[in-house]
């Protein structure tokens, strides 16, 4: 979706305000939302692209007005309802009203959860799973528009031309993974764009570059 989350190149957000101290969490509820998300992710009620998709569906004004971990909370509540684990009535009443089917979703203890998180999620496929359409050094153009549901091709790169500097390997395709309609493994490339090809005469320095990792489906030959 070409939504409010797609920030690259936008103006009007003011200066960046670096803060020396890094508290990670600014309130205790942020800790708990983080913990809940990891614990529920660990028993896979959702994948990371579905999670991103839900956050992208937060209405634009609300997206800008909520804190980072509030967005997680909104997505989490949506998932729990979508998977039939929790009902809207339960969330409104803050009380359990029915037994969820927890088969295959037994909660893991802390040690097991850390082991799962330490292992990570396998998103990569053997390199020969798909034949690459592009070679390193090839000039490519980013396609103009993508699936409305979720994609990882930022708007500021659409229609722009760059050079493939690495074929990273074969990865699952976020657009279809986010909709639970298939992994569609394909090559992922690091594409290098000259700042002047993105921002024209307004680029800060002609020799500067932006690099992005783009799925093969996002690219077309020039």
């Amino acid at each position, binding site marked *: 979706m070409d939504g409010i989350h797609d920030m690259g190149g936008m103006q009007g957000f*003011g200066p960046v305000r*670096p803060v020396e101290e890094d508290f990670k969490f600014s309130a205790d509820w942020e*800790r708990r939302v983080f913990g809940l998300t990891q614990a529920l992710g660990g028993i896979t009620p959702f994948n990371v692209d579905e999670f991103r998709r839900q956050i992208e569906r937060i209405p634009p004004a609300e997206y*800008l007005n909520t804190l980072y971990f509030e967005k997680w909370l909104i997505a989490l509540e949506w998932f729990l309802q979508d998977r039939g684990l929790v009902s809207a009535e339960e969330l409104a009443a803050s009380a*359990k009203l029915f037994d*969820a089917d927890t088969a295959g979703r037994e909660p893991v203890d*802390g040690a097991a959860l850390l082991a799962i998180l330490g292992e990570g*999620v396998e998103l990569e496929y053997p390199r020969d799973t798909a034949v690459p359409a592009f070679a390193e050094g090839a000039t490519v153009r980013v396609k103009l528009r993508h699936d409305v549901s979720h994609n990882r091709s930022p708007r*500021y790169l659409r229609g722009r031309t760059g050079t493939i500097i690495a074929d990273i390997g074969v990865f699952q395709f976020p657009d279809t993974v986010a909709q639970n309609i298939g992994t569609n493994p394909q090559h992922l490339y690091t594409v290098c764009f000259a700042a002047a090809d993105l921002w024209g005469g307004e680029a800060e320095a002609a020799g500067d570059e932006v690099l992005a990792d783009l799925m093969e489906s996002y690219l077309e030959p020039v």
Partner: protein
Amino acid sequence: MSHDHSHDHDPLEKGTALRVRALEELLVAKGLVTSEALDTVISHYENNVGPRNGASVVAKAWVDADFKARLLADGPATLEALGFKGFQGEHMRVIENTPDVHNMVVCTLCSCYPWPLLGLPPAWFKSMSYRARAVSEPRAVLADFGVAVPADTSVRVWDSTAEVRYLVMPMRPAGTDVLNEADLAALVTRDGMIGTALV
């Protein structure tokens, strides 16, 4: 449950804090999570995972040319051999600053970040301003951090659009020949490994 609401005085957060507490209690009652698991994972990311991980890798590369070559050539395997792997860091790559190139990392679409090496991202990394401006005016953003990159140094901004997570290896400061690996690691800052500081 070890969490404690006594520090939570912000009236704006009150509603959200209550909502989160109710959600956790509901999920515990339904047998979907245990508060012990939450406590463990929160504590892990607060205490065990943070920029010191990344700093140890950078310092090691500064003193060990063979390691550095392997690290730059095959980040995921080299880092995994050191025990650095996991969620939001399954495919981490290290990019090296040189006198000719200054690297900087952003995620314009959300806030992807190499958790196993740096922990959770700071607030400014997640801010709309950083996400918006890092790709279009990186030098102005660096100026917000007090960093001036010379005109003849190229700035390369890495937008974390897929599952690869990037760590910047800053240049080893001059005059540090006498320092050992641990002392060098102490010099390396979190912002240096994002690319918004020079070390």
